[in-house]
C-alpha cells in the first residue's frame, strides 16, 4: 500500500513538472529486469518469443476441422507404401511421414482436416496426430508462402547474427514472423538447429572436430548463420528443401530476390572462400595423413 501511495505521489509530481516525467517513469518501472523485458519486447518484431506458432487451432476460412481433405490418388499410393513399413498394429508410427506427405501435397502446410484424415488412416484419435504435428516445428499448421524461409535461432547461429538475418528478412518482406506476404510467395519462420541438434558441441574450436569426425551432415552450425528454404512452388513432386549458410543481411535479401525471380540461388555456403563446411580459405590442418594415436601401434593389429 505504501509503495502504491508513493508511486502515485511520484506520478503526480511527474505530471506537475513535465521534464521530470521521464525520470519518474523510469523509476516507476517495476524492476530493471522488467524494464529491460519491455524494451526488448518493443524492439523485437516477433509476436511470440518461441519458435513455433500457436499450439491451438483457430478456425479460418482455409483451415477448418469440418473441411474435406483427402490424399491425392498418387499420394494415396505413397501412403500405402509408407504404412507397409510398419506392423499393422503400429500404424501410428506412420504419423510423421504421413504428415510430411500431407504438407507437401497441401502447399507447405497441414490443415486440421488433413490431420484428421491422417488420424483416420492410422486409426488413432485426432489429438494424437495434433500432438505430433505441434511437437515438430517443421510441420506448418498455418498457411505458409510458396517459399517458406526458416531462420535458425539456436545458439551458434544466434551468436553469429541470426537475429539480424531474421530482422532483415522480416523488414524486407514487410511481414511478421509466421505471416505470409500478400503475394503469397514468402513466409518467415524460426527453426531450431538444423544440424543434428549437436549444436551444443559447436563453436569455432569444434570446426576441425566436425571435419575430422566426418560430421559433414548438412553444413549448418559450422557455417552459421543459416536459413532453410522450403520450396513448395512446384508441388509435392518438385519439392525441395535447401540450406543457405554463411549469410549476411545483404546476401539474404539477394537470395530472396533471386527466388522471387524464379532463379535457384546456389545452395550451401554463401561464403566465397569456403567449400562445403571446410574452413574458409582451404584446410588449415590435416594436410597429411592423420597421426595415429600414440598409445596404439596400428601396424600390430
Amino acid at each position, binding site marked *: 500500500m505504501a509503495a502504491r501511495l508513493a508511486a502515485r505521489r511520484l506520478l503526480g509530481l511527474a505530471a506537475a513538472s513535465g521534464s521530470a516525467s521521464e525520470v519518474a517513469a523510469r523509476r516507476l518501472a517495476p524492476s530493471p529486469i522488467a524494464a529491460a523485458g519491455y524494451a526488448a519486447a518493443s524492439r523485437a518484431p516477433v509476436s511470440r518469443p518461441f519458435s513455433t506458432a500457436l499450439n*491451438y*487451432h483457430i478456425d479460418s476460412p482455409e483451415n477448418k476441422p469440418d473441411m474435406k481433405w483427402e490424399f491425392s490418388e498418387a499420394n494415396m499410393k505413397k501412403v500405402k507404401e509408407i504404412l507397409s513399413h510398419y506392423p499393422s498394429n503400429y500404424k501410428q508410427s506412420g504419423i510423421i511421414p504421413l504428415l510430411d506427405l500431407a504438407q507437401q501435397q497441401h502447399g507447405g502446410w497441414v490443415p486440421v482436416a488433413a490431420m484428421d484424415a491422417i488420424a483416420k488412416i492410422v486409426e488413432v*484419435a*485426432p489429438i494424437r496426430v495434433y*500432438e505430433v504435428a505441434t511437437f515438430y516445428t517443421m510441420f506448418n499448421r498455418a498457411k505458409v508462402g510458396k517459399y517458406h524461409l526458416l531462420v535458425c535461432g539456436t545458439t551458434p547461429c544466434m551468436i553469429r547474427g541470426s537475429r539480424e538475418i531474421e530482422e532483415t528478412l522480416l523488414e524486407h518482406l514487410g511481414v511478421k514472423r509466421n505471416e505470409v506476404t500478400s503475394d503469397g510467395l514468402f513466409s518467415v519462420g524460426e527453426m531450431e538447429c538444423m544440424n543434428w541438434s549437436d549444436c551444443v558441441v559447436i563453436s569455432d574450436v569444434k570446426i576441425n572436430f566436425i571435419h575430422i569426425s566426418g560430421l559433414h551432415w548438412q553444413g549448418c552450425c559450422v557455417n552459421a548463420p543459416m536459413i532453410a528454404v522450403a520450396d513448395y512452388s512446384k508441388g509435392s513432386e518438385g519439392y525441395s528443401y535447401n540450406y543457405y549458410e554463411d549469410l549476411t543481411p545483404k546476401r539474404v535479401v539477394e537470395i530472396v530476390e533471386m527466388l522471387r525471380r524464379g532463379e535457384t540461388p546456389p545452395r550451401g555456403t554463401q561464403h566465397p572462400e569456403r567449400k562445403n563446411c571446410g574452413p574458409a580459405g582451404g584446410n588449415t590442418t590435416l594436410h597429411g595423413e592423420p597421426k595415429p594415436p600414440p598409445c596404439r601401434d596400428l601396424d600390430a593389429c
Partner: protein
Amino acid sequence: MAFVARALRRSKPLISSRCPVTVASCRWISPTAAAGSPEAGAAVAPADPELPRPREPVGGARVELPSNSEDALEVFVDGHAVRIPKGFTVLQACEVAGVDIPRFCYHSRLSIAGNCRMCLVEVEKSPKPVASCAMPALPGMKIKTNTPVAKKAREGVMEFLLMNHPLDCPICDQGGECDLQDQSMAFGADRGRFTEMKRSVVDKNLGPLVKTVMTRCIQCTRCVRFATEVAGVQDLGILGRGSGEEIGTYVERLMTSELSGNVIDICPVGALTSKPFAFKARNWELKNTETIDVTDAVGSNIRVDSRGPEVMRIVPRINEDINEEWISDKTRFCYDGLKRQRLNDPMIRGPDGRFKAVTWRDALAVVAEVLQQVKPQEITGVAGKLSDAESMMALKDFVNRMGSDKVLCEGNGPSPPADLRSNYLMNTSVAGLEKADVFLLVGTQPRVEAAMVNARIRKTVRATQAKVGYIGAPADFNYDHEHLGTGPQTLVEIAEGQHPFCSVLQSAKNPVIIAGAGLFEREDQDAIFSTIQTLAKKYNVTRPDWNGLNVLLLHAAQAAALDLGLVANPAESIKSAKFLYLMGADDINLDKLPEDAFVVYQGHHGDKAVYRANVILPSSAFSEKEGTYENTEGCTQWTIPAVPTVGDARDDWKIIRALSEVAGAQLPYDSLQAVRDRISTVAPNLIHVDEREPSTISAEVKPPVKQQVSSTPFKTIVENFYMTDAITRASKIMAQCSASLLKK
C-alpha cells in the same frame, strides 16, 4: 502429505537453530545437518536412534507378497530391508518401506509417465539420481531417499518447476490442497533465481465443470493419461514442445466425459479446478463429512465438504470395491441442487389451488383426517428413488397398518423379481467385474446408468481385451463393443445358439451378463429374465466359483426396496388409489390416478409430483440425514448428515412415525436404532453396514415361465445422464451440462 510433514518435522530444529544465522546453509533438510547445535541435537536424538526403526507402509497399505518366494525380492530403503513382489518400482518399494516419495506425475491408477522428475532418489552404485516411479526395483538395490544428493536433486527439480509457475497461490482454488505448494514447503527455495519473463499459456474451455488456468500447469500429463485411460475420451493431449508445451485439445472441444470432474482431483496443481466451486471457499474452512452418493445405484463413496448450512462441494473417497477413487460428474456436481427448489414448510393446497404454509400439527391433522375417510384398499404408498431403507420400512409398516398392501418403490416395475436377492443384485460385485473376460449387456447402457460400473468395465476391457456384446438401443460406449441387436429377439437367438456371439461366450472363462433394471418395466420381463437364465446355464455363467449373472439397478433406493418387499404393482395401485402417499416419488406415472384422489407429497424438492399434491410434507435430503442405502451389488452403506436440514423439514421416517400416531396407527419405533431393529427382522443384510452380502440361493428354484418375449426393442432408460432425480433436476450445474455436453 506425510512426507512433507516428516520433512518439516525434521527441519524444525534446523530452522529454529540455524536459520537466523545463515539462510543459505539451511536448505538441506536432513537430521545430520542439525546435529551440530545442542538444542537441535536434543530434539532429534530420541527420535533418531542408530538402529533404524521398522516402519509401516504409507497409508497403512497392505502388500500382498506372492506365495512363490521366487517372485519376491528384497531391497533396502534407507537401510531397512523390505520384501516386495517382483515388478514393483523403486517408488512402490519405498512406499512399502513407509517412505512417501514426493511426486507429481506418478499416479497409482494411471500409466507411468516419468516426466516430472520430482521422485528422484539416490540408488547406490548409480551415477545419477534415478526417477523412482519409472525404475523397476532390482534385488538388493540400496535406495536412499534422505541423502543430500536426493534432496538436492529434488530441490533442483522444484526450482525448475517453480520457474514458470505463477505466484498466484492467494487467488488459486487449489491453495491449501496443492501438491506443488506442499512440496515446495519441503523442497522449495525461499527465493527464485529466475529473472526472465515467465511463460503464459492460453486457458482452454473444457466445458461447464472444469476450469482451466493453464499457466499453472506443470506438464505432469496426469489429466491426459486420465482422459485416455480411465475416462476413455481421447480429447486431451500435450501440444507443442519445450517451454511452449501445453495441455489442450488443439481444436475447440469440450470434455464430454461423465468422469471429467476427476481431473480436478488428479491435477497436482491449480491448473484444472472446479468451475462451480471457483472462488467459493477455501478448503481449510470446510467441514468434511464422509458419506455416500445416492444419485445412482452404485453408492459411490464421497466426502461432502460443507461450510455452515451449505454444501460447498463433493469429492470422492477411496473405496476399492466400488468407485476406486473416481466419481461421476453427476455425483460431484449435483450439490447445488441441494440448495434450490427446496421444500421447507408443511403446506396445504387451498381451494384456490395455491399452497399455504401451515404448521406440522395442522398438516398432519389434515392428512390423518383424509386417511380416516378412505377405504383401506384405496391407500397407496410410493417410495421415491432416493429413499433410504429406514423411511421405506416406516412407509411399508404404516401403509400395512392402515390395512393396505399397496406400497411400492418407483422404478421396480409391475412385478419385480423380489423373491431371490440374486435376481436383482449385481452378483459378480463391481470389483469382481475385473475378472471377467466377456460381457453381455442386455438392455443396459452402463455409461449413463452407472458411470462407475462402466469405468470398471472399461478398465477390464483395456487391461485384458475382454469382449463386450451389447443388446439394446444404439448407445455411446467408450470401449470396443459389438452391437448385437436391439431387442429380445437377439437374446433368444443367443440362448438358442444361433448367433455369432455364441462362440465368444462359449470360449469365455468368466462370462458376465448384465441386465438393466429398465427391463423391470417391460411387460415380458419374466420371459426375458428366464431367457437370460437359460443363457446363463448354457454358457456356464453361474458356477460355484463364479457368478456372472447381474442386474444393474438404476436408483439408490431400489435394492433396499426389493429387500424390504415394496413390490406392489404401480399401475393397479395408482388406478385404484384414493389416498396416495408419495415419499419423494416424482417419476411415477400419475396419469391413471383418479381425479378425486388425495395426494400427499413428502420430499425435499419441489419437483414433478408437487404439481399434483394436496399436502406437502418437507423432508431432509441425503446430505442432511442418517440413512441406510443398499447399492446395486448388495453392499449396505450409511449416509452421514453433513449439513442441517432446511427450514422445518424432518427425516422421512420421523414424519411417517408422527403421522401414524395422529392417524391412530402408531408405529412401534421412536429412534433410528429402533427402526433399524425392525429392519433387521425383515432384511438383516441391511444392518451389516459396509458389507456386501452376496446372495447364496441359486436361481434354480424358479417356477417355469409361460410368457413369450415380445419383439419390442429395448428402450434407452436414462435419456439425460445429468438429470435423473429431484436433486439433479434442481441443479443449475447439471442443467448447464445437459445443455452443453449432451449430443443432440
